[in-house]
């Protein structure tokens, strides 16, 4: 009986310690492509760490000289989720193109689009959020005995 009590105490202590080692809000956002509401979102870290090989999310820009002294600038967002829903939209709106600068490695990305009915998708909204709860958990370093 004493042995059982000791074991339970050890398990409880270990559980409490593990909770304290992983403190901090964690709210990963797995990639979701919603073809009904023309919306996609997800964080880069969850996408990269997804079990499924096809999952991804991202946005980018292209700036190409037009040969006449001008620049052809456009941006895109694309994503694929675990349900194999995939989307790619483009935008030529210069203000929207500029917003891509906000992305970083740990960003949550969200975007919306319009569909002309024939498959031409135009990005109408791009959003980026960089917050601690999208970052992977990091184990705290173990305390030394003399501390």
């Amino acid at each position: 009986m004493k042995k059982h009590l000791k074991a339970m105490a050890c398990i409880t202590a270990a559980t409490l310690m593990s909770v304290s080692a992983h403190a901090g809000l964690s709210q990963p956002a797995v990639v979701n492509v919603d073809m009904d509401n023309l919306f996609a979102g997800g964080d880069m870290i969850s996408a990269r760490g997804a079990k499924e090989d096809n999952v991804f999310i991202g946005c980018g820009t292209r700036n190409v000289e037009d040969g006449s002294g001008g620049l052809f600038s456009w941006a895109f967002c694309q994503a694929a989720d675990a349900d194999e829903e995939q989307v790619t939209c483009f935008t030529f709106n210069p203000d929207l193109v500029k917003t891509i600068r906000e992305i970083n490695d740990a960003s949550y990305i969200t975007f919306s689009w319009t569909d002309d009915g024939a498959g031409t998708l135009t990005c109408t909204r791009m959003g980026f959020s960089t917050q601690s709860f999208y970052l992977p958990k990091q184990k705290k370093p173990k305390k030394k005995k003399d501390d």
Partner: protein
Amino acid sequence: MRVCSEGKVKLGASKLFAVLVVQTALLLFLGYRIMILETRAPEAQTQPINNNPVATPINSNADTSYNAASRAETRQIIREEIDAVEGRLLEAIEQSGAVRSKALTSRPRKLDGRETAQINTMVENQINSFVAQGDASQAEMAELEQMIAKLPPSERIKAMGQLSKAVNNGQLDVRF
């Protein structure tokens, strides 16, 4: 682009022709002035004698000095006329040269309808080729993007629309 360079050649040829016409006109003008001066020179030689019958007796030395002075004066006038014509010619040549160099360094002109149609066809063929193979490499996409960039803005959006359709209909697997 070939049409563009032909256009420049035509422009250059027309400018050269204009310079040639100006040069010819100036040479004719110079010839005309020389002819007038030649006709006036004998008059200049005879006028003082005719107008001044009581002038100093004409001797061979005086006649020689007068003729020499007259010839020098005539040469001076001709030289001035030639200088003026040369100046005008140089100015005309410089202007035509400036036009030529400007034509070489200026921005390429906008595409005409035929060129736009040609690039549109190339873009369409390229997208169809990608669809046929099912995917496109980053290098192939870069080439396509450069082609699309040459199009007028409204045509670019149409071309990108074709690309969007191919990608979102699952016909073309690309990562930008």
